[in-house]
């Protein structure tokens, strides 16, 4: 595949995974947790590097899951002891993130990790860092990891679709009929963590927040069905990734920044034009409710 092809494929995989996970972030009102976990995975990645002394995708994924879960557990712990939810999130993630930054700057600084790369990502390097897969041939490592993560996200969402729906909509009822609400919460936090770290090479730890939240928030404006929202959100993610890439090429600027910017455009269009909630719809015709 061509150089551009790999970049577009990698970015689209980011859009798909983030779009799917993002829907439940929005519906569970946990957008702030995405922000938190996107930062604290840095600590997981650095720690994994310090322990293993190599930049391997597998180690980074494990480190990220641990860091993400730690974030979720700590936030819950403080919140249960009377700290406001948002204050707890703010305190936990900035502290863990700071530890990550300190470790990077002291120990690993001159090696392969640097803060700027971690925060902004560098998708332009993705096609050069290849691994050899039996039967398939050479594939960029980041692309391969994103394929794995997308598969995991798809399987976990589809296998527990009704559990995700009921624990997101009515956790009280869910718990009362025996669905393990707390386990589902931490499983979801793990999904957010692996998605974030997989998107790390492509768009960086900060821009991944845009990919997680904005396509899902846009999709929410277009539909009243959860299944449709999932399809729309992941499509918006792909569109933003591709459009963002060409904006970056056209303006010769940051790819991750352009992709995040593209999600913003998608949201703005949705906000103006969506048939149910859009601003334009209110002026074009009076709101009518269809009788079913």
């Amino acid at each position, binding site marked *: 595949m061509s150089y551009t092809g790999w970049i577009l494929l990698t970015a689209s995989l980011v859009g798909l995974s983030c779009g799917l996970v993002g829907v439940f972030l929005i*519906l569970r009102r946990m957008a702030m947790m995405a922000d938190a976990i996107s930062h604290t995975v840095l600590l997981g990645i650095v720690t994994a590097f310090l322990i293993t002394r190599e930049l391997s995708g597998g180690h980074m994924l494990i480190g990220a899951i641990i860091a993400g879960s730690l974030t979720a557990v700590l936030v819950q712990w403080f919140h249960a002891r009377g700290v406001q939810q948002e204050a707890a999130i703010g305190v936990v993630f900035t502290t863990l993130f700071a530890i990550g930054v300190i470790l990077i700057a002291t120990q690993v600084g001159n090696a392969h990790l640097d803060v700027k790369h971690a925060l902004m990502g560098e998708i332009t390097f993705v096609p050069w860092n290849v691994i050899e897969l039996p039967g398939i041939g050479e594939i960029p490592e980041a692309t391969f990891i994103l394929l794995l993560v997308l598969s995991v996200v798809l399987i976990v969402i589809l296998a527990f679709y009704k559990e995700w729906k009921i624990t997101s909509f009515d956790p009280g*009822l869910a*718990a*009362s009929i025996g669905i393990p609400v707390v386990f589902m919460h931490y499983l979801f936090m793990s999904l957010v963590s692996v998605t974030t770290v997989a998107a790390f090479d492509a768009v960086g730890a900060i821009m991944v927040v845009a990919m997680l939240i904005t396509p899902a928030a846009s999709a929410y404006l277009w539909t009243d069905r959860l299944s449709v929202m999932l399809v729309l959100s992941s499509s918006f993610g792909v569109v933003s990734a591709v459009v963002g890439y060409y904006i970056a090429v056209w303006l010769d600027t940051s790819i991750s920044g352009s992709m995040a910017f593209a999600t913003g455009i998608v949201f703005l269009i949705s906000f103006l034009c969506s048939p149910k909630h859009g601003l334009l719809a209110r002026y074009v015709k009076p709101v009518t409710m269809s009788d079913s």
Partner: protein
Amino acid sequence: MTVLAVHGLSASYRKNKVLHDVTFNVEPGSLTSIVGPNGAGKSTLLKVMLELHPKLSGTVSFFGSTHSKMKKRIGYVPQRGSVDWDFPTNALDVVMMGLYGQVGWLKWPNRSHKEKALASLEQMGMADFAERQISQLSGGQQQRVFLARALVQDADLYFMDEPLAGVDAATERAIMTTLKELKEKGKTVMVVHHDLQTVEDYFDHVLLLNRTVVAHGKTQDVFTKDNVYRAYGGTLRWMREA
């Protein structure tokens, strides 16, 4: 056999003790209202019994067994305000959620589940709204969807948190008809209720609660001026002549 036996139950909320030494038994086929002032711990009592909120001490047994073993025989209707009605789903889907415990892991609801859910909606007079997005339903209609979801669970014991709060007259009638039908089928229902004027008409038993049980028994025996004053303390503004 008692359906529900609660003994010495205590619970706190952020270090404030909201339930203290709550003890009562519920007989099968009774329709009980849980009545008490704001902050009396009515909703918390339901949540503690259902193990949605931790208890400090005491025991709760359902049908002579534990909650986890009897889950399938217990239905719960949370307060309408406890969920996000902008959630992208329709009325039928919400009712189907009542069946998720029966569907089982890694399985999808099938046609028979859907038919059960539709029948429940029909019973609550909501069949025409099955495909309606839930945010486009009125408060009363939303409450009826919640009731339909409880009915589809086909439980033997129901807990309902303020199902009659802020609903229109037609919905109130529909819900009370349904509760009486449940009772006639031998089901047991406990309802957190806020309207003292209707307690006598609607419920055969009453549990007066103010952090602990003030009085519990048949409505005609227990729902007296003295007991209600004791439950509400100085906060009662209205009371019928007993």
